[in-house]
């Protein structure tokens, strides 16, 4: 179970600050079970967006956004609505958001923080990774996670160690995460995003709350006998 929690409303809207129109995308996998991004959770998010003055170009929830091979076919019927929007607000885990970012040429924003990827995270077939940091930055970084993609988990752009072919100082075969973010934001005509200072990570959020850890989805695939 990939456990997500909805970001506070003002944080979701902060991620959407540059966008006047939004396509809302949910995930009928774990996010549905967590009641964050399932089809049944979208109306509340849609209402929140509309109350904040955002134009909603469309919405849908698809099965398992982490299954990247199917995202494009799932989303084909919504292509016009997605391309009409300034961004896609994705309500799912960090892997799902990054899979959408890699599949759709549109700025993606995230509605959730990911706090646990226990269970099926071991069988991820695509390259996207989530560190379960609970303080998701994907709205600001072109849908590519700097925590997992940058060897130093830097949040404000590349260090001086990026080679001219976009590789990392620690290994010349490893892509520089920030070079990828730069390329993506450039492609999306959103380079101004790289001028915005991202504050230091809130590492306190890395520790899931007691309520999360004792909730019914924390270890749904197999909770040891006797554990709360």
């Amino acid at each position, binding site marked *: 179970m990939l456990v997500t929690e909805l970001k506070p409303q003002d944080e979701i809207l902060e991620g959407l600050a540059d966008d006047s129109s939004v396509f809302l995308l949910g995930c009928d996998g774990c996010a549905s079970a967590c009641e964050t991004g399932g089809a049944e959770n979208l109306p509340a998010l849609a209402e929140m967006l509309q109350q904040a003055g955002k134009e909603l170009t469309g919405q849908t929830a698809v099965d398992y956004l982490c299954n990247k091979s199917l995202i494009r076919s799932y989303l084909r019927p919504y292509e016009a609505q997605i391309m009409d929007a300034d961004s896609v607000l994705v309500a799912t885990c960090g892997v799902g958001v990054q899979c959408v970012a890699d599949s759709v040429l549109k700025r993606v924003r995230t509605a959730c923080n990911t706090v646990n990827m226990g269970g099926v995270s071991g069988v991820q077939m695509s390259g996207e990774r989530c560190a379960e940091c609970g303080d998701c930055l994907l709205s600001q970084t072109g849908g590519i996670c700097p925590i997992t993609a940058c060897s*130093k988990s830097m949040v404000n*752009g590349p260090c*001086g160690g990026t080679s001219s072919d976009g590789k990392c100082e620690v290994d010349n075969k490893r892509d520089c995460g920030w070079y990828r973010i730069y390329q993506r934001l450039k492609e999306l005509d959103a380079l101004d995003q790289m001028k915005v200072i991202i504050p*230091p990570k809130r590492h306190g959020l890395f520790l899931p709350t007691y309520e999360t850890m004792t909730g019914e989805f924390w270890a749904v695939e197999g909770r040891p006998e006797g554990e709360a």
Partner: protein
Amino acid sequence: MSDLSDALERGEFVATSEIGPPKGTNIEPCLADAEQLRGKVVAINVTDIQSAVMRFGSLATCHMLVERGLEPVFQMVCRDRNRLALQSDLLSAYGLGIRNVLCLTGDHTVLGDHPESKPVFDLDSVGLLQCVSALCEGHDMAGNELDGAPDLYAGAVVTPGADPIEPQLLKMEKKIKAGARFFQTQAVYDVDRFIEFMKSVAGFGVPVMAGLVLLKSVGMARFMNKNVSGVHVPEPLIARLKEDKAKTKSGETAVQIAVETIAAIRDHCQGVHFMPLGWDHLVPEIMDRAGLS
């Protein structure tokens, strides 16, 4: 605030240099390197666990320079300390008479001699600059009021030869917004490219000091071209190092190249930062011949 800030604010063409503490307690040769720069450069950077190779500390060395009446630039990287320790060391630095701090992210631990150590990177260079700004405003990063605030002159680094240059420029703007008041650059050899860079940052209004690493050998030039991002030693310079081995070995070629580089860039930037890598004794001569003394 500091001699460095005063000189840059007066619009002088400023020179700084750099020393690296030893691996061990034998600090005297390092202090002797600094002594050769007395009366020549305005301030001396002290590297902070350079290249992620464990060594004598920057904070202690900076304090030793202060005691000797030499002005240090305390280099601080984000690799080895979390925000509690960084803030605490910044307060300590001020208490020890240090007034200049250069904020860097730092090389990754895997590149150093303790590759299994935990890389911290709680902050990055931008976050560290914001942290210095906050302390100087009288509160810590969490917003708690300080009983006595430091007054530090914060600087940062930039790589003018990076390819592509755009991410560097975007980050430079962020660093300025976060509180960087001067810049020292990665090594400059390609003068035309550096001048081009200076044109693109002219609007930022923050002084830039060009980095000068003395060229000790052909092997060193080739190594940097292959392994140091954003540094390019042009072939004609390598040819000169090859041409006269005795002059290369004595440092005369390095001095000549540095003097020529300074002449070519001095109308385009606000100073130079020497990284002599042990050839500190040549810095005064370069400055004399370049007319900087």
